[in-house]
């Protein structure tokens, strides 16, 4: 009842403010009149009656004010007042407001964007039930790897039932050609064991998943499950798709179901478009059955109540047993399970993404710390500058709680503005990171979308800092000894706080120096990467991915198809040279492996001989502009039946035939090293898999002797790339509409892809941006503190000048403090950067983690900037007119 009544009054007070006020005024006026009337009734004359009444009621709405304080909703009125006052103050100091808000925004925004990226790459759980039970397995032979041979995986599955309810295997990233309604379309499939979907615990959106036979989980039914997205885009969500007969790579297959919406398999980053039983992999990819050269990725779902530690101990037993069962191949096997979402698959040294992500997280964290320090600094400085205002208001009767609330309101408004800016920046940033063109047709899912968790984190961190930074001075300011402050003005500042602010600035200078150095290293590395002598000439070359196999061609017909394609391409106008290759430099496919080199003594303990391989057609060297140093090129006569031959690069020649002419020597590859290959030529080194300095041994074999179902047609022509692209696409279509053409791009574009320059570019861009942000923040910080402390000392300087101090001496006083702070920051920053440089060094091209030039340039830039920031206030101090300084206040 009482509450209802209060609530009604609250609403009335808020929404009918004017009415309530007018009513109150009328009531007070009537009170006054009646009082006066009574006074006159008691015998006073009109004038004294009025005076007596006036004396009692008071003027200027005092009574009304008293009433208003007790009214329901009074706090809201106060808040509104505080907000209006804070707004006025913020508008009156636009520089301060802008700097503080921008600082907040930058810190929160950068952090949010980068955290979103890391989140998307590493941390975001896959959308399936009970992800906390999902693990992937890794094994160690010589190094850790997540690739398993299928039979071993199957043994693990059978023997680890105590820990895992399901163990499934997948082979992702397989491009097939799906022909359902005439014309074949590329589809990126994941080949999965039939228990894959039960492991994932998902149910089909339509139809069914593969039938599971626990004896043989690889499965042999020619069935296909489509992803929801592929079903929507390629079949327009046709509800009658289940049971639809189609062909995959020319072989009949039945579409049996559609995976649920949003399900993208368990392999991070890969956005699988279809799922095919693993048992079909060999035949679909045109490999001999049971050639277990391909490795599978293994997932396990923990049983209810089984934790990771238990699973590890079960796996340890299994590994031991397998080592005994297969002493030849699995002698030193170690098995481990890792939780899905605890890092990208393959994130055990083989894949640089987690390390790079971690580095950027550290850098972004540094920016946030710098931003927070800056805001704290700004607020502290301002609070001290306002000590006098606080004292005056306090002297005029403002309650302490009221003052604290006022300052907090201001801080929170700043923070809110900063959050808004940070959200916008973070959103734009994560969008920009997510929309980077990866220059591949692979369906990669880089979902760097703005993540609310991340944003809340950044917001919380910055919010806490601002609250502390606002609260401490507010409490202090409201407790000041009024007398002292009023009398001594600005000199009532404790030196302890000054020291704290100086420490903040030292931290800022060192933090931003670290950021800048790392940024510098990345930028230098990118420049180096761009200037690396590739060993081939990418200009004027266009690549076309062609997959005859996906068009339903078997090997003999495929060979014929590619021969015709090459012949026709060469007759097209403008074509200078055309050739076929199994892989392109910096492309997603890398071939090669272990080999046996005749006459090369293998040292035990050293890695076995291995090399990268590419299968190419004649004229490849001409198309790519790779020079033949010695011997002969691959010729048309190097046919399927002729002696197998190879061209080797300089590194391979030197490593395995040091001091000799490699031509005529032999090495062998393949299963049991039965494929004997004779070296017929030596070619110049070229960067094929990365831009780092070390070039791996590599050899080229004739495509005719190492047939590949999917090949890349490379065309060097004098016509514009777009013209060439159109012409070749048309050519393939005219040969067979079922053969898909994909990954069509210029060689230069391809070089900028995932494995090429893209990472260097992104790295340099990101690091550069963070470095710049840190730089700006540090300059703001140094400037803020120096100019404040110079202003604080205006009186002192005035006295000194009055006593005859020379401008140079004044300059020295102000500068000395700045120099000390900056110097200390530089030393600490360099030390931190050296430590971080060691970590980063692995990702740099042609530059070490302790590159002296970078350190020098960045150090000088930082010093100059910081000293300039000191110089401005110092100059102002130098010009202090003693008369004005001393007369002030």
């Amino acid at each position, binding site marked *: 009842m009482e509450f209802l*009544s209060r609530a009604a009054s609250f609403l009335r007070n808020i929404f009918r403010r004017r009415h309530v006020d007018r009513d109150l005024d009328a009531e007070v006026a*009537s009170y006054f009149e*009646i*009082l006066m009337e*009574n006074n006159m009734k008691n015998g006073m004359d009109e004038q004294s009656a009025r005076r007596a009444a006036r004396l009692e009621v008071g003027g200027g709405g005092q009574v009304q004010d008293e009433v208003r304080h*007790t009214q329901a909703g009074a706090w809201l009125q106060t808040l509104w007042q505080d907000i209006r006052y804070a707004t006025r103050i913020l508008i009156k100091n636009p520089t301060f407001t802008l700097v503080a808000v921008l600082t907040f925004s930058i810190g929160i925004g950068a952090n949010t964007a980068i955290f979103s990226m890391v989140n998307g790459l590493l941390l975001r759980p896959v959308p399936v039930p009970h992800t906390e039970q999902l693990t992937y397995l890794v094994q160690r032979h010589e190094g850790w790897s997540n690739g398993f041979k299928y039979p071993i995986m199957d043994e693990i599955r059978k023997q680890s039932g105590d820990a895992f309810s399901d163990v499934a295997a997948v082979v992702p990233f397989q491009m097939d050609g799906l022909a359902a309604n005439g014309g074949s379309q590329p589809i990126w499939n994941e080949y999965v064991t039939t228990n894959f979907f039960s492991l994932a615990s998902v149910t089909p959106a339509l139809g069914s998943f593969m039938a599971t036979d626990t004896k043989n989980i690889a499965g042999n039914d020619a069935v296909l499950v489509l992803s929801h997205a592929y079903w929507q885009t390629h079949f327009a969500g046709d509800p009658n798709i289940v049971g639809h007969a189609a062909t995959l790579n020319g072989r009949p297959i039945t579409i049996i179901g559609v995976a649920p919406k949003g399900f993208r398999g368990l392999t991070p980053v890969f956005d699988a478009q279809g799922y095919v039983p693993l048992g079909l992999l060999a035949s679909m990819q045109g490999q001999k059955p049971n050639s277990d050269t391909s490795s599978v990725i293994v997932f396990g779902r923990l049983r209810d109540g089984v934790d990771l530690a238990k699973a590890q101990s079960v796996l340890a037993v299994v590994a031991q047993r397998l080592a005994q069962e297969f002493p030849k191949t699995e002698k030193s096997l170690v098995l481990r399970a890792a939780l899905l979402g605890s890092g990208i698959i393959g994130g055990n040294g083989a894949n640089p993404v987690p390390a790079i992500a971690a580095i950027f997280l550290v850098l972004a964290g540094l920016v946030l710390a710098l931003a927070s320090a800056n805001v704290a600094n700004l607020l502290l400085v301002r609070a001290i500058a306002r000590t006098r205002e606080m004292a005056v208001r306090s002297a005029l009767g403002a309650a302490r709680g009221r003052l604290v609330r006022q300052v907090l309101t201001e801080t929170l408004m700043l923070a809110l503005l900063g959050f808004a800016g940070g959200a916008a920046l973070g959103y734009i940033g994560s969008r920009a990171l997510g929309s980077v063109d990866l220059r591949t047709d692979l369906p990669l899912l880089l979902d760097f979308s703005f993540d609310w968790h991340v944003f809340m984190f950044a917001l919380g961190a910055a919010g806490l800092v601002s609250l502390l930074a606002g609260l401490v001075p507010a409490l202090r300011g409201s407790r000041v000894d009024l007398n002292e402050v009023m009398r001594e003005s600005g000199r009532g500042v404790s030196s302890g706080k000054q020291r704290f602010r100086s420490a903040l600035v030292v931290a800022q200078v060192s933090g931003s120096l670290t950021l800048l150095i790392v940024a510098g290293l990345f930028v230098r590395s990118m420049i180096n990467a761009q200037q690396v002598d590739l060993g081939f000439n990418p200009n004027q070359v266009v690549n076309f991915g062609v997959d005859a196999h996906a068009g339903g061609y078997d090997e003999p017909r495929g060979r014929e198809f590619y021969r015709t394609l090459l012949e026709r391409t060469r007759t097209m106008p403008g074509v200078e040279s055309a050739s076929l290759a199994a892989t392109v430099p910096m492309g997603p496919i890398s071939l090669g492996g272990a080999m046996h080199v005749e006459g090369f003594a293998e040292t035990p303990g050293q890695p076995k001989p291995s090399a990268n391989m590419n299968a190419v057609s004649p004229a490849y060297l001409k198309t790519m502009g790779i020079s033949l140093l010695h011997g002969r090129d691959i010729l048309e006569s190097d046919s399927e039946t002729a002696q197998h031959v190879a061209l080797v690069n300089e590194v391979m020649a030197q490593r395995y035939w040091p001091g000799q002419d490699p031509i005529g020597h032999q090495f062998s590859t393949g299963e049991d090293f039965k494929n004997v290959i004779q070296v017929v030529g030596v070619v110049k080194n070229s960067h094929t898999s990365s831009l780092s300095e070390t070039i791996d041994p590599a050899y080229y074999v004739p495509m005719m002797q190492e047939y590949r179902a999917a090949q890349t047609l490379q065309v060097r022509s004098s016509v514009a790339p777009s013209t060439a692209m159109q012409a070749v696409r048309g050519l393939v279509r005219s040969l067979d509409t079922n053969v898909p053409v994909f990954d069509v791009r210029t060689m230069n574009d391809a070089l900028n892809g995932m494995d090429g320059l893209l990472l260097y570019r992104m790295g340099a861009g990101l690091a550069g941006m963070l470095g710049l942000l840190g730089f700006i923040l540090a300059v703001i910080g140094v400037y803020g503190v120096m100019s404040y402390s110079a202003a604080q000392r205006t009186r002192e300087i005035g006295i000194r000048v009055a006593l005859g101090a020379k401008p140079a001496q004044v300059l020295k006083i102000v500068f000395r403090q700045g120099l000390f702070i900056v110097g200390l920051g530089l030393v600490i920053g360099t030390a931190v950067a050296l430590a971080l440089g060691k970590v980063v060094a692995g990702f740099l091209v042609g530059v070490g983690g302790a590159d002296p030039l970078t350190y020098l340039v960045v150090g000088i830039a930082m010093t100059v900037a910081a000293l300039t920031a000191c110089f401005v206030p110092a100059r102002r101090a130098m010009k202090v007119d003693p008369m004005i300084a001393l007369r002030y206040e």
Partner: protein
Amino acid sequence: MGDKQTELLQGTLDMLILKTLALGALHGVAVAARIEQVTQGTFQVGPGSLFPALHRMEEKGWLKASWGESETKRKAKFYELTKPGRRQLETEKERWKTISVAVSRALEI
């Protein structure tokens, strides 16, 4: 009696006002006069404490306010007790009795 003392005796003031209004609706000046008269001048309630108290109690729903005419035909705001106000008066009386008995005993010892 000044504002400072009234603050201390806020509960008392509320009770006095409720008691004063228990006999019928009155306007502000009349309330103040009646209290002064009844307490024989011990409590002089100025508008600075009377108005906040009246409005606070009105917002709590103990009093009801309405415009009316004074004895001299002046427009004035009249306050009267509501049902919850009456209940509140009883509560306050009980409380006061307990306190005054307790305090008197304490002082007698």
